[in-house]
């Protein structure tokens, strides 16, 4: 049994989510290969080769793979898919974009967002915003899976010594083209892998007021997040959204500020190690999951907390 893990990267750096997917592969058991599909991505392949548990890295390097276009990346995966019993993607925006394309072409079901491996064909995955956990079994010859990164502790980034094998890169499909990218510039850690997260909700009241979270996030070395309500209201950008339809996070410390705690939000953060909630409404559902709740006016409590840390 050999498992293929599709690397998440930006052509320069291997993203941490790949290491969580490798960890899931290690639980399934068998040889683990990592596919790096990119352009000028040799450094990424070298990083993947050093990850623990990886026995081989396939590097497909070509212009058609530069921008992660789903049509081309899926074709690249399909070019090698025949050698594998399982194909795992981290459940990131790009993994979720490409994996179903691969599964459909192979005429197999995809198993989305697995949080546990029970056996090589049986997996747990959350449904209904995490309000239920389904245990599903696949009889398909190839298992195409996306891995919820918070469900698996990353393997070590160093210590491995896999060989890197260059494979032929696919040609461009000609169906889609990349126009541009606007990525937020931030010195803060990435939300999905941050050790601490400070999230704001509708209680912040405005985009301007969201800045009150900055000093606290600075002190904690935290990423900033937001509830869907805050994103919908235009207080925070969409890529900050934590919840069922946004990012799933499980940091060591999650500070929920002015967030009531809708089930869709809890779905995205309830596996955090320590949860702090600051809300003026003592009845807010967020207090039902918080380790430490502070019923207070956030506009006073947040600056005070930032100063006290």
């Amino acid at each position: 049994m050999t498992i293929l893990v599709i690397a998440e990267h930006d052509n320069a750096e291997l993203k941490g989510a790949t290491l969580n997917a490798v960890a899931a592969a290690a639980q399934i058991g068998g040889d683990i290969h990592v596919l790096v599909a990119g352009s000028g991505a040799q450094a990424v392949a070298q990083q993947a080769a050093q990850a623990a548990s990886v026995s081989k890295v396939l590097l497909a390097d070509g212009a058609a793979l530069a921008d992660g276009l789903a049509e081309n990346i899926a074709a690249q995966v399909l070019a090698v898919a025949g050698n594998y019993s399982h194909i795992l993607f981290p459940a990131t925006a790009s993994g979720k974009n490409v994996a179903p394309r691969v599964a459909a072409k192979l005429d197999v079901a995809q198993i989305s967002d697995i949080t546990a491996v029970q056996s090589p064909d049986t997996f747990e995955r959350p449904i209904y915003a995490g309000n239920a956990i389904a245990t599903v079994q696949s009889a398909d010859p190839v298992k195409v899976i996306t891995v919820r990164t918070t469900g698996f502790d990353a393997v070590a980034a160093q210590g491995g010594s896999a060989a890197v094998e260059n494979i032929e890169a696919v040609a461009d499909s000609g169906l889609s083209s990349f126009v541009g990218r606007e990525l937020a510039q931030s010195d803060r850690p990435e939300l999905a892998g941050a050790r601490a997260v400070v999230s704001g909700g509708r209680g912040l009241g405005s985009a301007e007021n969201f800045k009150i979270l900055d000093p606290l996030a600075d002190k904690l070395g935290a990423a900033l997040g937001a509830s869907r309500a805050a994103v919908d209201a235009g207080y925070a950008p969409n890529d900050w959204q934590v919840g069922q339809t946004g990012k799933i996070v499980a940091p060591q410390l999650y500070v929920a500020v002015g967030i009531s705690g809708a089930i869709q939000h809890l779905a995205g953060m309830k596996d955090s190690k320590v949860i702090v909630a600051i809300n003026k409404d003592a009845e807010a559902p967020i207090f039902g999951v918080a380790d430490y709740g502070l019923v207070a006016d956030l506009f006073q409590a947040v600056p005070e907390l930032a100063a006290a840390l």
Partner: protein
Amino acid sequence: MKVLVPVKRVVDYNVKVRVKSDQTGVDIANVKMSMNPFDEIAVEEATRLKEKGSAAEVVAVSCGVAQCQETLRTAMAIGADRGILVQTDAELQPLAVAKILKALVEREQPQLVILGKQAIDDDANQTGQMLAALLDWPQATYASKVEVADGKVTVTREVDGGLETLALKLPAIVTTDLRLNEPRYVTLPNIMKAKKKPLDTVTPQDLGVDPAPRLKTLKVSEPPARKAGIKVADVAALVDKLKNEAKVV
């Protein structure tokens, strides 16, 4: 240009589902059902394309039990011109739905299919991408902006860390994200009008699709509950707990 919009009937956004005691699934008897919120955004977007003159006809499709007719009526009240119900009582998984939709695309010949990025019941996030693969069409998932011009659709997508923009040759698949639009409030006159719009019913078998599920659900269980903690009196007490008890700062 014709736009096809698949819509799914799901447990309403505001309902907290309960796992059945025999662990065979969640209890959806007597709970409120609604259109999947992302699909509502898809219908709204297709309707706006029609209002702008980019689309000539909007066709809504729903796959599932007879009551999916209600979901199609909602889509038609928002602005879809007609509905197609692919009726079956069988459990439908994303691959089967994608195959049904492929057959309908071949029959209806739309230039654009707009779907919700994920359904809030199974949270699979697969159908649009699978349909794109089966048709060999380009895809742009998680759209926050859609523009159709000159045989192309230009889509701004929500990705990790920000936005990216792709240009797709038509015909193409787009899946919606939250910020694409805010669906209109459905008015009573439009609900009445929707009742008179055409609604056809077919079966997966009519379309030559075997909808049998590929994944077997062995059990559905409650997630481990998180215990509520304590309330602290003030910021000083909170800092003390974080430093000395939780040891996370």
